[in-house]
């Protein structure tokens, strides 16, 4: 079985929950959800996850039409209880902001002026509550200066490490930004003063390429490794969790190229 870039991202993203213990792991979107399932079925069986509707499950539910598969429910998790979990803090979500800035602030509300948006998007949804209460990671399917903005994001929906945004006396102790997995690399907030830092580069990608596709300066780990390729076991699990290959729609792969390679500079803008 040949691994795709989406498979590589799922495996990289699944590392986000390592060491978290019994948290509610919420992967919003195809790649993050598969990443949670992979983590739970490999190194982190203690993770809690839902059927993406209202019940807790101990076995990750395959994506898409289920045929004869019947989910088995371990508990109940309606939205009211999700908010209780969020505010209590025992959750780690992976989300896909449309914009992310150097402080880790995220936007899914709208593009342009909030009073008269150029493009209305989802609204802030659960971003403010998630980001001020529990751990958050991000998945970005197209690493570009449009996603990683030079200036502050158009609407700050999720909080980050921008001191100017924090009134005196507000508790920032629960802000906990973890991994950013993109189609080019894996990053975290481990640079000086929470600067975004490249942790690993996907095969064939250079740091310069990542920097050129990012609107703000990046730090990098001293010895920058290549993002590990999926193992046969991991690929088999991903295939089982995504039998209809919905993950193929997430990342545009360059036709005729090697599995992981991208045209240099293709990610610079969109």
């Amino acid at each position, binding site marked *: 079985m040949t691994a795709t870039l989406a498979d590589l991202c799922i495996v990289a993203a699944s590392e986000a929950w390592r060491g978290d213990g019994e948290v509610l792991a919420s992967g919003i979107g195809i790649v993050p959800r598969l990443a949670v399932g992979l983590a739970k079925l490999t190194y982190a069986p203690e993770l809690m996850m839902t*059927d*993406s*509707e*209202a*019940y807790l499950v101990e076995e990750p*539910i395959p994506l*898409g*039409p*289920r045929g004869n598969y019947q989910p088995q429910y371990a508990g109940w998790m*309606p*939205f*009211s209880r999700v*908010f209780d979990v*969020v*505010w209590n803090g025992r959750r780690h979500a992976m989300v896909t902001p449309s914009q992310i800035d150097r402080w880790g602030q995220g936007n899914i*509300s*709208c593009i342009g002026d*909030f*009073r*008269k*948006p*150029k*493009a*209305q*998007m*989802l*609204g*802030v*949804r*659960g*971003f*403010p*509550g998630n*980001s*001020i*209460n529990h751990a958050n990671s991000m998945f970005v399917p197209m690493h570009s200066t449009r996603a990683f903005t030079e200036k502050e994001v158009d*609407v*700050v*929906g*999720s*909080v980050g490490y*921008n001191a100017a*945004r*924090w*009134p*005196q*006396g*507000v*508790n*920032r102790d*629960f802000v906990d930004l973890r991994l950013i997995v993109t189609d080019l690399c894996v990053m975290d907030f481990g640079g000086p003063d929470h600067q975004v830092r490249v942790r690993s580069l996907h095969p064939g990608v250079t740091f310069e390429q990542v920097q050129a596709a990012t609107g703000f300066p990046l730090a990098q780990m001293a010895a920058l490794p290549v993002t590990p390729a999926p193992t046969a076991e991991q690929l088999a699990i991903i295939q089982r969790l995504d039998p209809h290959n919905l993950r193929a729609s997430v990342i545009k792969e360059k036709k005729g190229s090697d599995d992981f390679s991208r045209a240099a500079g293709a990610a610079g803008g969109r």
Partner: protein
Amino acid sequence: MAATGLNKQTTADGVVAQLRDAMTVGVGGWGPRRKPMALVRAILRSNLKDLTVVAYGGPEIGMLCAAGKVSKLVYGFVSLDAMPIEPWFKKIRETTGVEVVELDEGLLQWGLRAAGMRLPFLPTRVGLGTDVTRFNPQFKTITSPYADGEVLLAMPALKLDAALLHVDVADRLGNTQIHGPDPYFDDLFARAAAKCFVSCEVLTDRLDLSHAATAKANTFERSLVSNVVHAPYGAHPTSCAPHYGWDMDHFKRYAAGAGEEGGWQKYADEFLAGDEIGYLGKVGGAERVGKLPLPVF
């Protein structure tokens, strides 16, 4: 009939007759799920205007905006789920505009909770550090009076003049049950409202005689319920799990109108000109709506 002598049954028009221009109306359900659309359609057919609508929004917000019924929106999101951004909400926001209070999803239930408990506000950290507070300067902070001295957001109560809900079964006393997997925040909408109007798929004389085994599916008490309306398939085009899913074909037809000149009027002429029986006929009847598949996630 009922031992209490209560009979809260009325019609959708009977509900609308109790609403006034400029009221604040909360709508239960969640996005494209279990919305009281028969009641919303009755508003769309009425002369009501200048409403403030509070919701985890779905097509009711897009439709009420498209029909010019709304002066202000208070929402956690507005989405049709499979269509992530509600098409008419998007159009209104990007063109003519409407006053909005965009909230975190948890903050919305917190404001409803404050109203339900008759408190001026409830404290929370949620919203601090974000543009929710910048775009809503009416939201104030409060300093904890205890040793921690923490600064918190004082989320103001979201008091409603009326709440509109749709449930699976109700009785004429105002008892209700929600049989779908998630009751959402209908209980908080009911408690935050001066008057609460509930439409239902099935209406019985007394739930204690007809549905006693599922009494745990009752999430708010009948003393909160002003009237009940029998509205089979009254959530269409939204879903009413476990009975029927949302109507994607209808959403597409509705969404297409947002891109056409006079698109809303065409939709209204086609689907809202008659009554609810006429509406159900136009969308395929009980035969079709009852078989709309539940979404798989």
